[in-house]
């Protein structure tokens, strides 16, 4: 069906986001198209800074040093990302002035960036050190913590840094974009991935020995099948997927597959290596996994990592496979037991609503228009709704399933998610995707139940908090909104009801969820700061709109269609800063309320 080798879960969103320089360059040109001139002009200007830098840093012609310079090891926390704030209009000058205890981000950014550039060439222990720095790991950490950590690292690394920066000579430190979580995969075209899978034979055998024969033999078998895949044998491809999916959660195969031998490791490999370490243990340290995932999960291991972060899969390796099988069976039983009740008088209305919404779920993504996928959506939403009569199905929940389906289905597809015919996937695999999506959605919604109960108190509460945060960090914008008569509820309701999904392209949502799933109360608490950072990002352009109508229209149609990981990571970095500041001085907020 397709001549390209399997893309190992390299989903369309990743490709788009990571894409080649030419893709990134499209940011400026295509942003003009959405009829949002004011924003576009300003934003594309801001992005073009990032863009040039990206092109530079990903230009392969600079040889090995270039590739390692892109290989910024993921900081355990977002200060790496925040270090990257380009001089975009949203840079948080007002924040740093309004939050005295917080170390001025701006002053730290430059050295931090250069040090992380160097870090790729520094010994592994140092990465370990960095990774294990616990300072900024908990959301209640004092604002200093992050700063303290960075400065420590800086001091340590800065001594080694300058040379390498000069050497590579391609990174203007202040312009260095946030280390995009998945950029690591950039140089890895599907073809090279295939090669890497083959070249790692020795290492995999080693792993196999460590992990026991069973996994090893499966791996062997899978490798064989993979070679056959390349000869375009659709059916075998599916079997391969099958075995992969059957094993993914219980083993580390998809992880080891990507470990390349050799001296020079790219950032991708190092990041995967770190994940590998975290995932290999018989009892995964979820906190450590969260620290790693905060700055983005490589797409090929995202399905497994998300299952763990959601709390759907147990940290204990031995229990994992059994749990997975049990939960999948349990879901099947739920469908068997309840799905027929959808036409009963008391459930008719719910199912009718779901049926109306499913066809208009992600209408721009072809996969979600396929009947097989739509039926999955219907079942997931219906079963969830009748098991949660307190809220039932609420519009927007249909959006919230899509990232899970996209991530999990991509794992069993033989071709690109965006163009693949899902009917070619064996039903048994789709059933697993469906069950996993259901349980992960349930976990996610458990944390934000009050968003969807009668009168939606959770949403109104979060809007009030968002308003309060904006009032403190961007008084000018707050006053502007107030003077033009725009209410927060008029734009932010949708932001919170759909967790910003309506405002962002799917690949950005997925990246955002890497972080939110890694945060304690990510969608209930941290997400409000994400909304605040998101709003603040457009502050200048919004303040230029001085009447109610153009302002609200702007707010409801923010120009994010060309966003990639860099932009969303800027938002995340800012959100992290806000959370550090506000959670430490929560008294201010609560006193106000």
């Amino acid at each position, binding site marked *: 069906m397709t001549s390209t080798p399997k893309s190992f879960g390299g989903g369309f969103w990743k490709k788009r986001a990571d894409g080649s320089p030419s893709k990134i360059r499209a940011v400026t040109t295509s942003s003009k198209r959405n009829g949002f001139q004011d924003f576009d002009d300003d934003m594309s200007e801001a992005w073009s800074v990032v863009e040039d830098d990206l092109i530079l840093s990903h230009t392969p012609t600079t040889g090995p040093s270039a590739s390692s310079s892109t290989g910024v090891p993921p900081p355990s926390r977002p200060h790496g990302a925040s270090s990257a704030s380009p001089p975009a209009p949203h840079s948080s000058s007002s924040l740093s002035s309004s939050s005295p205890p917080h170390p001025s981000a701006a002053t730290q950014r430059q050295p931090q960036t250069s040090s992380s550039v160097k870090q790729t060439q520094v010994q592994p222990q140092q990465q370990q050190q960095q990774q294990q720095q616990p300072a900024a790991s908990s959301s209640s950490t004092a604002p200093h913590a992050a700063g303290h950590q960075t400065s420590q690292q800086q001091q340590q690394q800065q001594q080694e840094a300058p040379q390498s920066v000069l050497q590579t000579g391609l990174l203007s430190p202040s312009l260095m974009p946030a280390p995009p979580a998945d950029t690591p995969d950039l140089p890895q075209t599907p073809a090279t991935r295939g090669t890497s899978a083959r070249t790692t034979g020795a290492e995999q055998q080693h792993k196999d020995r460590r992990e026991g024969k069973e996994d090893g033999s499966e791996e062997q078998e899978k490798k064989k099948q993979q070679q056959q895949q390349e000869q375009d044998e659709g059916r075998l491809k599916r079997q391969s997927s099958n075995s992969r999916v059957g094993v993914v959660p219980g083993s580390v195969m998809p992880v080891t597959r990507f470990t390349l031998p050799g001296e020079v490791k790219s950032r991708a490999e190092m990041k995967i290596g770190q994940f590998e370490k975290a995932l290999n243990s018989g009892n995964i340290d979820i906190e450590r996994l969260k620290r790693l995932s905060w700055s983005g999960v490589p797409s090929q291991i995202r399905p497994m990592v998300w299952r763990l972060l959601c709390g759907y899969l147990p940290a204990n390796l031995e229990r994992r496979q059994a749990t997975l099988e049990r939960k999948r069976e349990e879901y099947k039983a739920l469908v068997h037991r309840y799905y027929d009740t959808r036409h009963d008088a008391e459930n008719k209305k719910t199912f009718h609503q779901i049926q109306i919404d499913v066809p208009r779920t992600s209408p721009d993504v072809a996969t979600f228009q396929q009947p097989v996928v739509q039926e999955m959506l219907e079942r997931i939403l219906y079963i969830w709704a009748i098991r949660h009569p307190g809220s039932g199905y*609420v519009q927007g929940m249909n959006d919230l399933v899509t990232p899970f389906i996209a991530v999990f289905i991509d794992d069993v597809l033989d071709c690109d998610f965006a163009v693949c015919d899902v009917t070619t996937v064996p039903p048994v695999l789709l059933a697993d995707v469906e069950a996993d999506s259901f349980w992960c959605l349930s976990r996610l919604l458990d944390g934000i139940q009050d968003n969807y109960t009668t009168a939606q108190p959770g949403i109104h509460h979060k809007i009030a908090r968002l308003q309060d945060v904006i009032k403190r960090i961007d008084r000018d914008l707050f006053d502007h909104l107030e003077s033009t008569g725009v209410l927060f509820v*008029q734009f932010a309701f949708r932001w919170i009801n759909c967790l910003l999904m309506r405002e962002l392209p799917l690949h950005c949502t997925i990246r955002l969820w890497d972080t939110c799933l890694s945060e304690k109360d990510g969608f209930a608490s941290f997400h409000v700061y994400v909304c605040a950072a998101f709003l603040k990002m457009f502050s200048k352009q919004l303040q230029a709109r001085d009447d109610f109508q153009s302002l609200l229209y702007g707010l409801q149609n923010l120009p994010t269609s060309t966003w990639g990981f860099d932009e969303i990571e800027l938002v995340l970095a800012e959100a992290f800063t806000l959370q550090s500041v506000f959670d430490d001085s929560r008294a201010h907020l609560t006193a106000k309320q």
Partner: protein
Amino acid sequence: MATRKKVLLKVIILGDSGVGKTSLMNQYVNRKFSNQYKATIGADFLTKEVTVDDRLVTMQIWDTAGQERFQSLGVAFYRGADCCVLVFDVTVPRSFESLEAWRDEFLIQASPRDPEHFPFVVLGNKVDLKDNRAITENRAKSWCDEKGNIPYFETSAKEATKVETAFLTIARAALQQEKDEDIYHDFKDAVNLDDVPDKKQDGCGC
């Protein structure tokens, strides 16, 4: 009406989920139909400048979410409305039966000064789906008559049937409402002035 101030008309579109509120608004404002609209969450809005009886007016059209759960938002979105458009899908009886509830809900939440005479317009949408038609024109009309002669139009957002005509009527109704509001406003002010001495000499605790 001494001054000819710039007129802004606020129109709210209500109705069950999936009856075509977003499509109607977009057909009217952008003259486009798409079957790719996502479910509206909260409310979206668009504006259009139109000339109604030689007056240039700006219509601010609010397209709301159809699910009942979002009704708590009503106050934020309905306030200050000059006309309310009730939409149902002629192929879905339930959406027609909901009209009454939507009307009541609007009057409660928007609390217009003169609910008895507040202008509504009813649109029976999707008339292009002739084979699936479930609500006859007569049935819809008689409901509208019952509710105080609400204007009724049979529309198709998909084929742009009667959309323009319907919105012109909506704009007229809104404009009339706006004028009435002005008059009411003046009257109210006068009453307020009278109230002032009362307050000064009031001896009760209220």
